[in-house]
């Protein structure tokens, strides 16, 4: 297992985002873990180089230690703008995260719908335009829609992050066909974010040609998050290899795998 991961890590199959060559195509979120202490173990097991976190008002009645203290060195921090309902709020959060020393990567997340937490593509586009102009490496979380993806690309987004299913739902690639179209039509990396609940679903996204996946809830709510992080790591590598290998065509009817000549009963 380690041989396979090492061989793919040492190959030239890296993912270029914001001027950085990433070896790992698994991005990991840090929400919903039972304790901060498990986070470093999960990140190590995942092999992930890009990790998300959120910015919130400090609660001095029950002080919590800063999640950044649990990030391994050299992790690329990808603060999200969760909590933002408008482009203006997303821009404000991105600037605050940068001021806090988080670097210049940001995951735009603008949500008004509180039931399904579906992103507002229009506000997301406005925030992307503004933050790209300010020099951020912008990764917008979006509802998979080709028109919006094209506009995000034109606005200078570093990657596009369509949802597979609603955040935290563990329902997998419900938007598969729309994501397939984005992969086909958009030259930016397509990173499937939200909804992936099982390693097989991450592998499926990677086999389709997704550049990477972002997983949080599926790992954090597993009975053993460290094992699950490892499982997603392997699934992402397997799916990527499957994509690179170029799957054979699908057929409705059988095509014998064994030659249809030289049978015993012939002649």
């Amino acid at each position, binding site marked *: 297992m380690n041989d396979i991961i090492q061989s793919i890590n040492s190959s030239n199959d890296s993912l270029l985002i914001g001027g950085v060559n990433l070896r790992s195509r698994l991005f990991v979120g840090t929400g919903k873990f039972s304790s901060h202490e498990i986070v470093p173990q999960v990140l190590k097991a995942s092999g992930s180089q890009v990790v998300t976190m959120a910015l919130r*008002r*400090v609660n001095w009645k029950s002080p*919590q*230690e800063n999640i950044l203290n649990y990030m391994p060195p050299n992790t690329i921090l990808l603060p999200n703008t969760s909590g933002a309902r408008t482009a203006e709020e997303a821009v404000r959060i991105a600037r605050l995260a940068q001021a806090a020393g988080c670097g210049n990567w940001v995951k735009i997340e603008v949500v008004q719908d509180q039931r399904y937490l579906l992103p507002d593509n229009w506000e997301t586009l406005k925030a992307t335009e503004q933050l790209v102009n300010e020099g951020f490496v912008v990764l917008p979380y979006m509802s998979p829609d080709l028109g919006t993806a094209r506009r995000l690309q034109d606005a200078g987004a570093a990657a596009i992050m369509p949802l597979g299913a609603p955040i*935290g739902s563990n329902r997998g690639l419900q938007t598969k066909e729309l994501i397939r179209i984005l992969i086909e039509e958009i030259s930016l990396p397509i990173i499937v974010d939200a909804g992936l609940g099982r390693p097989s679903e991450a592998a499926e996204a990677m086999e389709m040609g997704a550049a990477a996946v972002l997983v949080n809830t599926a790992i954090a709510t597993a009975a053993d998050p460290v094992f699950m992080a490892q499982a997603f790591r392997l699934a992402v590598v397997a799916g990527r290899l499957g994509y690179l290998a170029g799957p054979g065509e699908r057929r409705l009817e059988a095509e014998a795998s064994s030659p249809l000549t030289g049978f015993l009963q012939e002649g």
Partner: protein
Amino acid sequence: MQIVVNGEAQEDLSECTVFQLLESLAVTPKTAVVELNGKILTQEHWQDTLLRADDRLEILVFIGGG
């Protein structure tokens, strides 16, 4: 004086700097982000920025998120 911290009114504050207020609230300073009246206040200015009546202060930290 009264100032508003994270949306909540803090009454009867005596004159203090942003840094002193953070300390009094037991906020580990090096990991917080501060916004004063809608503008980011970077760490090097916490010691020399005096709070004034009706200031609005936001103190933020990073937490787990996806």
